């Protein structure tokens, strides 16, 4: 457009996934001059929500045309399909960041209607309150009392009042020892560990109890906040979240360039092996900054595989999921031991009630960590729960993480989005990168807003 353009910035951010967009927003609010670039022509990267045409062309070798899509599934533009399925914990850190940055002004949320767990071929609602525990068919009468005692301990435990710890040391006792103290049986352990603490495997049993305690507490507090489930979901899909934080960054002066591939990364002394980051060369010019934040796809040689691969299957249904009381949204967890696996299988279900698909449709996204040579067969127990499936899109993603922490070359890289069902590990990554980049921990302050006069 021929305007003059600044070429020097405090930070260059590459990729508009949610991790990068939150960091871009936070740093702009801090007064940093941010240039945010994406090689793709839309916001969100891996965490985008796409329409059906995009979905078909991304996942199918011979995608059907738009007319055929629309005759089958209604208007293409009514669809906003997440590529990475996750929900927000109502009391989790992402919710906290959204509230403190006022990004809640751009994104509307709905409660997810239910949280279910699979047991011996059936699905059950996860009890998260003492009342629900008492009425749950998941447990026998004596087990219910023990569960009630456990939940009372979770809610009354206070760090500085030793008497509330009931003789347990969160940093010394393992979670298995905590279960033993309350006399909880294997199937109760299973839903506490997998459906409430949301661990994807059983490694946590032999580890100190604190992280598990904190996770169960987060689950209970999240349920207590709105009632039906611990989860929230944004209208129009998760892709709204990166867009909202990008707007936050922009209103604090951040500059946005989509559809701008990186032609070359510039290093000090032209040394791409040992040099520091210096800038990027693009079709719009050369831009410099003392540091860069990027997703793994921009610096694949500086990332390594975590050794884990995630399989995700996006399923279109034209009916609610059976045995869920026609819920418009829910999560189902299939604990590993129920289906002879090492890792849990998650199913996230949303529907037209969230403006992510055309009327009468439901989207179910199944995900798990790949364990065998035939990963699609690993998802069979999940497909069985869904009833007839209109269309299926399957993909396998390697999970990457940076080899180094960025202190040497000023290149700060995010991790791939993992298999967990919520955003807590993503916000941990955000806070970690924020700390490494700024040298101080992230402290969320309420924005001082001039235009809030009329709300």
């Amino acid at each position, binding site marked *: 457009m021929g305007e003059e353009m600044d070429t020097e910035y405090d930070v260059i951010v590459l990729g508009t996934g949610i991790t990068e967009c939150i960091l871009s927003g936070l740093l702009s609010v801090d007064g940093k001059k941010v240039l945010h670039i994406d090689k793709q022509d839309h916001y969100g990267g891996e965490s985008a929500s796409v329409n059906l045409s995009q979905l078909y062309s991304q996942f199918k070798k011979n995608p059907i045309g738009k007319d055929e899509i629309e005759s089958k599934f209604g208007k293409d533009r009514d669809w906003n399909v997440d590529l990475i399925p996750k929900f927000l914990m109502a009391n989790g850190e992402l919710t906290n960041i959204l509230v403190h940055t006022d990004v809640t002004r751009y994104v509307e949320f709905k409660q997810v209607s239910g949280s279910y767990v699979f047991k011996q071929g059936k699905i059950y609602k996860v009890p998260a309150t003492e009342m629900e525990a008492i009425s749950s068919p998941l447990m026998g009468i004596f087990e219910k009392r023990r569960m009630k005692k456990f939940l009372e301990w979770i*809610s009354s435990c206070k760090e500085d009042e030793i008497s509330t710890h009931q003789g347990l040391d969160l940093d010394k006792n393992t979670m298995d020892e905590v279960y033993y103290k309350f006399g909880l049986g294997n199937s109760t352990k299973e839903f506490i560990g997998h459906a409430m603490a949301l661990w994807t495997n059983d490694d946590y049993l032999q580890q100190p109890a604190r992280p598990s305690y904190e996770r169960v507490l987060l689950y209970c507090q999240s349920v207590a906040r709105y009632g039906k489930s611990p989860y929230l979901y944004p209208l129009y899909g998760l892709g*709204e979240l990166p867009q909202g934080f990008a707007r936050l960054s922009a*209103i604090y002066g951040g500059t946005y360039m989509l559809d701008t591939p990186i032609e070359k990364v510039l290093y000090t002394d032209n040394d791409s092996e040992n040099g520091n980051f210096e800038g990027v060369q693009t079709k719009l010019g050369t831009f410099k900054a003392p540091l860069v934040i990027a997703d793994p796809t921009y610096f694949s040689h500086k990332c390594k595989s975590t050794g884990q691969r995630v399989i995700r299957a996006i399923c279109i249904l034209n009916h609610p999921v059976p045995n869920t009381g026609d819920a418009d949204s829910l999560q189902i967890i299939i604990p590993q031991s129920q289906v002879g696996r090492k890792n849990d299988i998650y199913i996230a279900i949303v529907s037209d009630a969230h403006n992510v698909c055309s009327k009468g449709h439901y989207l179910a996204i199944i995900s798990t960590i790949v364990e065998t040579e035939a990963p699609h067969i690993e998802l069979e127990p999940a497909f069985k729960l869904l009833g007839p499936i209109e269309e299926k899109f399957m993909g396998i993603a390697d999970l990457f993480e940076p080899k180094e922490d960025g202190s040497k070359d000023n290149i700060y890289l995010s991790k791939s989005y993992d298999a967990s069902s919520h955003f807590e590990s993503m916000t941990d990554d955000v806070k970690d990168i924020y700390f490494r980049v700024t040298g101080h921990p992230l402290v969320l302050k309420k*924005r001082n*807003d001039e235009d809030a006069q*009329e709300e």
Partner: protein
Amino acid sequence: MSNPITSIKLVLLGEAAVGKSSIVLRFVSNDFSENKEPTIGAAFLTQRVNINDHTVKFEIWDTAGQERFASLAPMYYRNAQAALVVYDVTKPQSFIKARHWVKELHEQASKNIIIALVGNKIDILEDNENERKVAREEAEKLAEEEGLLFFETSAKTGTNISEVFLGIGEKIPLKGLEDEHNNNGLNVTEDQRINLANTANASENASACSC
């Protein structure tokens, strides 16, 4: 009894430096600043106007500069009920861009969006009519073809600014708004929505888990 209030999301579109923010500043604060820096830190501005027995509350979204490199997010158009497409009457390129934005709105925004085409900076013409590079007739023709409201304004002097917003306010279907939502296939039930911001304090005060 106070007037019923209808909230309207209004988005601004147009090439950089045509005066989008100045128009809003004039409308909201009746103010103008000659070398205005791009807006920093405002999520959106609000202003109320009374139309007959109704109060219309405009929530005005600025592009925040994201239009510069074709990087406006779909979120920006989402549920917008009105749009101002602004060009500079002394810059023909900005009018070409305005045509582009009108097309973009028809594709991206909701079907019933009310669009006003606004030719700004007419104060420059008072001294020298030769400065005009976009003919009034040409803009009127575009407005007629596309079903747009049309105004020529000056944010600097205030000419026609409030008329733009009153004009939009009069075209907004005040009472039928909720029904329209449903007709669009949006199908949103108000009761299940969560207002995170309103509950922020509650969660901060809650020290212990209530389960």
